[in-house]
């Protein structure tokens, strides 16, 4: 039980913009002043400090099979960044594909307390949850890959919609998932034949369905099940010049329904070839400004080493041909695929510099901060621990211009230099906490109102936003002090966030037949049991 006293509070959900407020915490929740015993109250002096809710990352790859393949093929990534143990923490290694513990510590040390693992193949859900058990401090959820699942594709073909909804519901239950993710719908299935899809109306081989049908169906299922988070979509044609048209068409497919487009930066390119790749961020931003049903996260480029990892197998093969770097491909039976390629984003490369500017354009041109979310698609466009650098770029026009001048001149072909907008702390609190929490349907996160989880980050108030957001003075998770002055001081296990929806038993029988014939494991070993998760919380549907 304690009171955080005298801090400058930024709580956009309640419209609190830097006013001095006291915050009362009891039993891991934020409570009203009258609900605490004033006599036995510990006081945490936050005067001169900035108080925000704990950060929420809507899209990050920190656990599961492809992250592990990334770890395996990149010993050189780890050698540079050993992390010794301390009294409280375990040892490990960091950099782009760090160990589970180190990832969790580094997230907590940024003031982030909730993370969504953004791509979990159903077959690898057990593995992912096992890694998440070793990811302490933070709360975590899994988005389950469904855009290329055999069962779904087949029943789109046969037009049996109810069966799909039933199956999706069962699959979320079996994987202990939080939401539906679709990656390059149809494209990964075609990759099993060495092909891809080039647009929304290409055919998926062997099924006779189109990406457009897959997306519409999944959006409909998502909305009918009332899942807290909209469909989390990685569009077709990622990374290719001219792909903004596919992205725009995809947005139109959504109509009035909710849709979350992830790492939009990789989907905002004009031009016909890599030589004249250009920015179409303004076009997309304008469309998003006019359509309140859409939200995005950016996937901002950070110059330096990254490890690209995505279920988008065909794109990873293209990237391998472009970079001549190592490549690992993974085929997940009936469900999806994955590819991993290490990559280096260089300041003096015209394409990389343009990509960097496109990400910032999206941040700055989309007017409503509630619908644009800060991510680097960790570790694809950059490691998450560079978030403070992005915050500084958004808050400080001068710094942004200096950086623009230091990168390849092609970046100046974008609108970036003409945009004067600077984010305020209030807006930063939206794009890093309140916005993603709202978009994920996490009503008890991302704000500091009564009833919210006591996930609180307290930063020193500094002119240099990068330093400020890298060095929180205190971080609380469920009312427990976990970070003090940059050091992890408590070991604590966060919760797995999941949803529960209803399904008809008949579906299990049908899936069972499929498993007997085609799967490498039996149905009995497939669903992840609830007892498997050390701590969990069921988030109610809408």
């Amino acid at each position, binding site marked *: 039980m304690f009171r955080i006293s005298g801090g400058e509070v930024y709580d956009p959900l309640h419209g609190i913009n830097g006013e001095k407020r006291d915050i009362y915490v009891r039993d891991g929740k934020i409570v009203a002043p009258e609900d605490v015993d004033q006599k036995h109250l510990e006081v945490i002096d936050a005067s001169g400090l900035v108080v925000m809710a704990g950060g929420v990352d809507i899209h990050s790859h920190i656990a599961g099979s492809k992250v592990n393949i990334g770890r395996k*093929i*990149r*010993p*050189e*990534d780890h*050698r540079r960044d050993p992390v010794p143990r301390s009294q409280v923490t375990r040892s490990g290694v960091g950099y782009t594909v760090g160990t589970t513990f180190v990832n969790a510590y580094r997230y907590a040390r940024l003031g982030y307390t909730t993370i969504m693992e953004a791509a979990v193949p159903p077959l690898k859900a057990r593995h992912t949850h096992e890694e998440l058990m070793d990811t302490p401090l933070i709360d975590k959820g899994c988005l389950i890959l469904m855009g290329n699942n055999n069962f779904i594709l087949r029943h789109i073909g046969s037009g049996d919609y109810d069966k799909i909804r039933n199956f999706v519901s069962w699959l979320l239950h079996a994987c202990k998932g939080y939401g539906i993710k679709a990656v390059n719908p149809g494209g990964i299935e075609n990759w099993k034949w060495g092909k891809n899809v080039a647009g929304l109306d290409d055919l998926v081989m062997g099924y006779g369905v189109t990406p457009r049908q897959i997306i519409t169906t999944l959006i409909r299922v998502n909305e009918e099940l009332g899942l807290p988070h909209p469909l989390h979509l990685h569009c077709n044609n990622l990374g290719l010049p001219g792909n903004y048209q596919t992205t725009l068409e995809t947005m139109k497919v959504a109509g009035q329904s909710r849709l979350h487009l992830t790492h939009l930066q990789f989907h905002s390119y004009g031009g016909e070839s890599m030589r004249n790749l250009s920015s179409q961020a303004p076009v997309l931003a304008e469309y998003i400004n006019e359509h309140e049903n859409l939200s995005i996260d950016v996937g901002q480029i950070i110059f330096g080493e990254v490890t690209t990892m995505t279920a988008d197998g065909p794109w990873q093969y293209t990237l391998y041909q472009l970079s001549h*770097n190592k490549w690992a491909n993974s085929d997940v039976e009936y469900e999806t695929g994955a590819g991993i390629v290490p990559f280096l984003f260089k300041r003096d490369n015209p394409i990389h510099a343009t990509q960097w500017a496109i990400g910032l354009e999206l941040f700055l041109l989309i007017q409503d901060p509630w619908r644009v979310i800060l991510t680097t698609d960790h570790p694809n466009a950059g490691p998450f621990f560079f978030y403070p650098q992005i915050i500084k770029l958004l808050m400080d026009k001068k710094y942004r211009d200096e950086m623009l001048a230091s990168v390849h001149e092609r970046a100046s072909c974008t609108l970036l230099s003409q945009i004067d907008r600077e984010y305020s702390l209030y807006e930063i609190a939206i794009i890093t906490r309140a916005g993603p929490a709202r978009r994920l349907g996490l009503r008890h996160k991302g704000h500091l109102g009564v009833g919210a989880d006591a996930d609180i980050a307290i930063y020193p108030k500094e002119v240099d936003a990068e330093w400020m957001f890298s060095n929180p003075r205190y971080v609380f998770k469920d009312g427990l002090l976990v970070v003090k002055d940059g050091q992890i001081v408590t070991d604590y296990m966060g919760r797995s966030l999941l949803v529960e929806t209803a399904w008809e038993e008949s579906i299990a029988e049908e899936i069972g037949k499929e498993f007997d014939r085609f799967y490498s494991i039996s149905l009995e070993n497939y669903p992840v049991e609830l007892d498997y998760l050390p701590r969990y919380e069921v988030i109610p549907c809408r």
Partner: protein
Amino acid sequence: MDKVILRLKERSNIPVEAEAICPDLFLTKSQQEIEELALYYGNKGRRLGDFFQVQGERSDNIVIEGEIPNFKKIGQGMSRGNIHIQGDVGMHLGALMKGGRILVEGNVSDWLGAEMEGGSIRVKGNAGHLVGAAYRGSSRGMRGGEIIVEGDGGSEVGELMRRGLIVIGGRAGDFVGAFLIAGTIVVLGPVGLRPGAGMKRGTIVAFQEPDLLPTFHYNCLCQLSFLRIYLHHLREEDLNIPQEYLGGFYKRYNGDTLELGKGEILVWAGQVA
């Protein structure tokens, strides 16, 4: 010349992580400070003074007396000075070094000069595997400098090497110059299996007929002035280079044609033609 002499107190088989034995560090330290430098003995932290009797201070000239095959990472990342090791020494000697000189009277274990960028290493005995190689996962091995081993070398000598010179006086193991990107490897004795597998560019020089992979193709018989200069240099380094090597002809094979195919393996053909 001032020097710091380290006399081994007692021989042990337990591995010691000794990256603290580095001229750059010794240069500014008093004798007492040198004795206090931290080493890992197995998984226990110890002081340098626990293992060695230290004589001298503030010098980048280090002499180590005694057999230390369990001491790893000596001279790792050094950029100047000398290390003279009078016995055998352990793994990772001179790994990542940028400059200076290391002389070993005895034998050396694996990863000698791994990913080194400059400086020179001379070994009078034999070396282990992966001389001048890339650490697992890295894209490049040795990036510059010179390694001369008078005895034999193990497998994967110069794996992924990018620049520099490696000379093996005796026999070399399998996969000499595997994935070679550039640079020169000279082997005076017999060469093991699959030399130059996956090499892109660079030169491997052999004086006994190697068993080449089928992805290497014979080009021509040639005399190369660069090679004569290199061999003269090795003579100056007191290596035993017979006169006929200097004037002789070499068979040139290019490969590995599964990769770029711009690499070459030169095999001494005697005084023919």
